[in-house]
């Protein structure tokens, strides 16, 4: 077989092997790759940063385990940002299979802060600083219902506490007390937040999504319906960069550590596409 033909027929096992190598090696020897935050991520960071003291951040962790590596770093970075700035946080999910991931992110970040806290005031306390509302089906109910009363939609939180007895819920009654709602998802859920929560109640919506769904969301960002936008692992790494740079929160940066793998994987895929096209070009000329 000639070289040109070989270029168009590389065995898929070779591609798999090289790809596995470039993805795994940087993860075994993690290095933080610095990224320059882009405008959509900076806009989201600014919006979370400027939440007034009497208003809360709602974090919708509607991401499934399949997209965890991309979206979980976003949840962790936003929570770190909110807790470092002492923002009030309400966490919820719209589908039952996402509860465990939201719980995991919350446990991790509150643990990070509480292990360093010296006083009760410094600590991140459940019911005072944050509440995990859990899940109530179908998604339309919380989206519309929280405009009137959050405790009516969630009479009990994830742990079974009566929400109207929690200190935080005495202050945060509905969307009027919400600074921004950040939806982390790999599906079309953010569009529903715009349709039901933003159009009807005027609540600001920020979004973190997978890279593959990012292109779908740019029209909403351009019109201002999304206050900010984090796209894929790169978006998460940019947010991590902003949190560390501005707030000096030096914790493990999952997305930034995975950027090297991501970069190498993209470069390898591009190299294979170029090789395939060179072979294809010469084959066509020969014919």
């Amino acid at each position: 077989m000639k070289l040109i033909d070989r270029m168009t027929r590389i065995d898929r096992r070779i591609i798999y092997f090289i790809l596995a190598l470039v993805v795994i090696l940087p993860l075994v020897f993690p290095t933080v790759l610095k990224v320059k935050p882009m405008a959509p991520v900076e806009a989201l960071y600014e919006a979370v940063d400027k939440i007034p003291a009497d208003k809360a951040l709602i974090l919708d962790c509607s991401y499934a385990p399949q997209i965890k590596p991309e979206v979980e770093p976003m949840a962790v970075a936003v929570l770190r940002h909110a807790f470092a700035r002492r923002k009030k946080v309400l966490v919820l999910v719209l589908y039952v299979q996402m509860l465990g991931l939201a719980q995991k992110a919350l446990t991790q970040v509150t643990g990070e802060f509480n292990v360093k806290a010296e006083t009760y005031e410094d600590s991140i306390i459940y019911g005072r600083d944050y509440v995990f509302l859990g899940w109530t089906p179908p998604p339309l109910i919380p989206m519309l219902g929280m405009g009137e009363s959050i405790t009516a939609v969630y009479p009990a939180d994830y742990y079974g506490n009566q929400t109207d007895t929690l200190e935080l819920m005495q202050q945060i009654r509905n969307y009027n007390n919400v600074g921004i709602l950040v939806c982390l998802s790999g599906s079309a859920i953010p569009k529903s937040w715009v349709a039901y929560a933003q159009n009807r109640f005027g609540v600001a919506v920020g979004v973190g999504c997978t890279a593959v769904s990012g292109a779908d969301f740019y029209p909403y960002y351009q019109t201002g319906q999304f206050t900010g936008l984090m796209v894929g692992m790169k978006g998460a790494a940019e947010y991590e960069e902003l949190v560390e740079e501005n707030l000096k929160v030096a914790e493990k940066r999952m997305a930034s550590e995975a950027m090297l793998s991501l970069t190498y994987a993209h470069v390898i895929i591009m190299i294979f596409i170029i090789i395939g096209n060179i072979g294809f070009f010469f084959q066509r000329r020969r014919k």
Partner: protein
Amino acid sequence: MHKRIALVLVFVFGILGIIPFLIPHPIVQNFDEFIRNDILRILAAFALALALGSLLRVHVDKIRRKRVNWQYSWILILSFAISSIIGLFGGVAGTGLLKTAIGSFHFDIQTLYENIIIPLASSMFALLAFFMASASYRAFRARSYEATLLLVSAFIVMIGFLPIASSISSRLPAFAQWVLNVPNVAGQRGILFGIALGAVATSLKIILGIERAWLGGGK
């Protein structure tokens, strides 16, 4: 007769779903809140029970008739039963009636989720990267003018969003962002208008009883 009742219910509740967006009067808003917070929630609970019952019935039937891969249905039923018992009686973090720890070995619902569901689902999805790499190598060829345009724009966006982009050219990230902000948005917006108009038309057809395929029973 039962089809007529379903059609009337869809018409009434379809109209009731639209009205609160147009009339801000407290009576209308309170009634809408009652429908959403009480009726819709009860319906959702029934739907959940119905779905779980249906899932179990399908798999029990598969085992009884020894259909292809019937053995896997046992795994589903057993997993369903075990996770239901642990979830219902073990509490969220192992604080319920059922003891979910033997010494340092924990099997509460969160531990099961973090150690079984997350790795399984993540691994399944991770395989996609390998298939995509192989598929893009085989299919991404500059066969025509349109394919070349697609290839070039994909390369610009891919390189532009990599951390090394600014090392190649300081303008590359901004140019990749422009591709997403302008040509991409123009195309997406056209598609969105089409989808929105289509959704409005289909919804009206269902509410008015013109479209009845959802009732089933047709050939």
